[in-house]
């Protein structure tokens, strides 16, 4: 709350800085704006930037590192005996102290030394808040006054403001790179500490997946339950079923839309397919778990087949429906992009429309269609909610679509939802699975994009 007020104050101060700078610049030339190097507004922006940038930097710095510093101070002020008594790690102890300080009902039987630590924490928080407010305001005001004294008619205010603005633009364009780097590093870092406990080959080629954490040091069987092969086969099975549904339907509807449909039909069907693409995956998951799964099981029972209610068929089939619009819109673009001259040449030789499409258009569009399918596969592999809701939890090494299988994403969710201890192989294995998933989709996307680019160059 206080932070919010502070942010608003900073914003007001910035706005005030704008008018101050503008007024100051005009005052220096007695109101004759033509004597200024830049438009008067730019002097205002100059001041506003000098107010906002120091203020926001100090603000962000404090918010980011303040809590960590407080935690360090509180934990280092605890006596050895308190630390020794506490169950679990210092981080857990600190959470308890925080709860006492926040007055949450959890901490009814707090010990006196923890109470004292909580009091200490409270007073530190107070100090930190006061420090933050004064530091932020001081930084903003310093910037304001300093830049105020620098305003001169011949100052190149526009160039300076634009230079800073350009730096901001550059900075925001690097966010994409930073995100990718962040993903790779966070996955790699956690996976490496997992592979230190479980050999990477056991993980990639082991056949038994039942992740457990050893409670005691001497417990057996705590490290051989991390064979991820059943997850990979489960993912591939569901993806295969999904593509079996999505590829023919998506491709055929794209062909029809591109070469047969009248503009009227096109203008109706395209938005409807977009609706299909815009429905959240959790809705598909709900539909698969509630309607399709039981429906398939009932059909199975009536013809004497044993179908699991969380069968791979239900999850894969519904996922296929989800991917249809994806494949159809990508293939549509590609089929439309095949030059008219190819089609007309084929018609001139007497080929029917279907023959033209099959023998001329599709072969020409093949690389694009394949890359659309690859992108579809990468979507299917990474899809989470449908399988979490409609596929099973138990790792099952089978190729039978009527049985229940589990996937990589399902396991990531089950391992990480709820309370978790960090640094246990069980939690870390989720990051290793994430790394595999990321690598697989990265490779698929890369190949697909490359194929599309190469293909586009042919006709341009």
């Amino acid at each position, binding site marked *: 709350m206080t932070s919010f007020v502070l942010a608003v104050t900073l914003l007001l101060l910035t706005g005030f800085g704008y008018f101050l700078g503008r007024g100051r610049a005009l005052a220096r030339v007695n109101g004759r704006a033509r004597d200024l190097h830049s438009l008067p507004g730019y002097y205002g922006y100059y001041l506003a930037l000098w107010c906002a940038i120091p203020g926001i930097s100090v603000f962000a710095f404090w918010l980011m590192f303040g809590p960590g510093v407080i935690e360090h101070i509180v934990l280092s002020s605890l006596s050895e005996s308190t630390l020794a008594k506490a169950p679990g790690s210092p981080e857990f102890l600190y959470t308890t102290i925080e709860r006492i300080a926040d007055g949450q009902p959890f901490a009814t039987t707090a010990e006196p030394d923890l109470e004292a630590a909580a009091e200490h924490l409270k007073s530190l928080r107070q100090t930190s808040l006061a420090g933050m407010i004064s530091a932020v305001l001081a930084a903003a005001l310093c910037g304001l006054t300093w830049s105020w004294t620098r305003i001169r008619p011949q100052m190149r205010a526009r160039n300076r403001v634009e230079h800073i603005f350009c730096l901001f633009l550059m900075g925001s364009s690097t966010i994409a790179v930073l*995100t990718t780097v962040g993903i790779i590093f966070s996955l790699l870092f956690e996976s490496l500490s997992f592979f230190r406990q479980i050999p990477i080959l056991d993980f990639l080629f082991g056949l038994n997946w039942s992740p457990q954490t050893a409670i005691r040091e001497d417990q057996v069987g705590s490290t051989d339950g991390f064979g991820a092969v059943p997850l990979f086969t489960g993912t591939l099975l569901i993806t295969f079923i999904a593509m079996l549904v999505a590829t023919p339907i998506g491709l055929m509807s794209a*062909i029809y839309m591109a070469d047969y449909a009248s503009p009227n039909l096109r203008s109706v069907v395209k938005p409807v397919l977009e*609706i299909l693409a*815009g429905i959240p995956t959790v809705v598909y998951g709900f539909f698969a778990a509630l309607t399709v799964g039981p429906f398939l099981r009932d059909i199975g029972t009536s013809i004497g087949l044993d179908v699991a209610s969380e069968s791979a068929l239900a999850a894969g089939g519904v996922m296929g429906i989800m991917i249809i619009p994806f494949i159809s819109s990508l293939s549509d673009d590609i089929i439309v992009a095949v030059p008219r001259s190819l089609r007309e040449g084929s018609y001139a030789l007497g080929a029917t429309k279907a023959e033209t499409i099959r023998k001329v258009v599709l072969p020409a569009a093949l690389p694009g269609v394949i890359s659309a399918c690859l992108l579809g596969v990468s979507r299917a592999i990474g899809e989470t909610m449908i399988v979490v809701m409609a596929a099973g939890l138990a790792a099952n090494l089978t190729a039978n679509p009527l049985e229940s299988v589990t996937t990589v994403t399902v396991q990531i969710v089950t391992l990480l939802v709820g309370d978790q201890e960090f640094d246990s192989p069980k939690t870390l294995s989720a990051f290793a699975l*994430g790394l595999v998933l990321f690598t697989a989709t990265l490779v698929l996307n890369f190949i697909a994009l490359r194929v599309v680019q190469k293909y586009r160059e042919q006709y341009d």
Partner: protein
Amino acid sequence: MTDSSKSKSMSHSDRIAASLKRRHAAETRFRLYGISAIAIALIFLVIMLGSIFIRGWGGFFETQIELTVDFSRQIIDPEGTNDPAVFARADFRKIVRNALKARFPDVTKRKDVKALKALISKAAGYELSHLIRDDPALIGTTQNIWLPSSDEVDNFMKGSVSRDLPESARRIKDIHVGWIEELEAEGALKSTLNLRFFTHGDSREPENAGIWGAIVGSTLTLFITLILSFPLGVMAAIYLEELSPKTRWTDFIEVNINNMAAVPSIIYGLLGLAVFLNFMHLPRSAPLVGGMVLALMTLPTIIIATRASLKAVPPSIREAARGLGASPIQVVLHHVLPLAMPGILTGTIIGMARALGESAPLLMIGMVAFIVDIPQSFTDPATALPVQVYLWADSPERAFVEKTAAATIVLVAFLVVMNAMAVYLRKRFERRW
């Protein structure tokens, strides 16, 4: 010679005629494949939305029972303190029980009295306690009040539990059915709009559970997503499209953006867990973190849409502005950007709609907790609308199926409104140069 050539050409044209039939049949078949592919996709859409709508429509309604409630001072405030804190601690369930007993005076057997309780929601006590909190003058009076029925009665009334089932297979026993029919005959049972569903947070009792908490959580999350991803995305797109020279570095950025658009959403959740929670120690389950993760996910959508609409602004505009002495940044900010704005906004709304429907990354950062309170700030524990759907879909109670479908309808309605807004913007402001 002529004969033979004639017969030969005849057979040739016969062959062609015969094959033409086959080829035209193939043509018709091919066209049919296309139509049926589209039809299958559309039928699936109709079945899916239809089945959810049919299941969920009832969730907007509830069954209420009218009872004569005696707000006895004996129970609410026996010592006459007039202290609201005392009122809040009073045993309102007992008042509900007494009202039920008064409604059915002939029920005297201990077992039956116990069964009577199953008619009224466990949350009815809260309703009464809120009434007293708002108007203490009610104490000591007797009022006719419509109270929510239990979820079993509600299901029974809506017909999702069939009356033909054997008694042992349903939770509403024959004795309850008798009472329900008695109430119905006397007009003390009605079905009304379930306002609680729109104003309450989550609850373990299906009849008391609402989506308001999830809607607020989603709003807070999307607000963070918008204020982060919109400026960053637009600024990045301006730089890449208008100002930057084509270098290896910008090519590399472009590869990264395309890749970001295709990374599975759950990976963003892992990033958020590792960086925002474990490294930066931001609060778990908070809309702040959820918004940050979704902002990263939405960023490529906005960048790509912005670049496309910047590209669509004709170069003559830029040249004219530059000819009048505008600096490159003035050209962009004063001329190109305003013209590209409708396209940018359309892309942003579509990105926001995707973010609203996304749940996998939110599971990773702990926005799946059972949270009753309506979140008040960006750092309060919260959940989001799609996550609420996921949570309820997992609940064992039968009545939650209806709630889940109803919440799904609300979610889809929001998305339809957002997408319609995007389409309207595009239609209204799109300019062909």
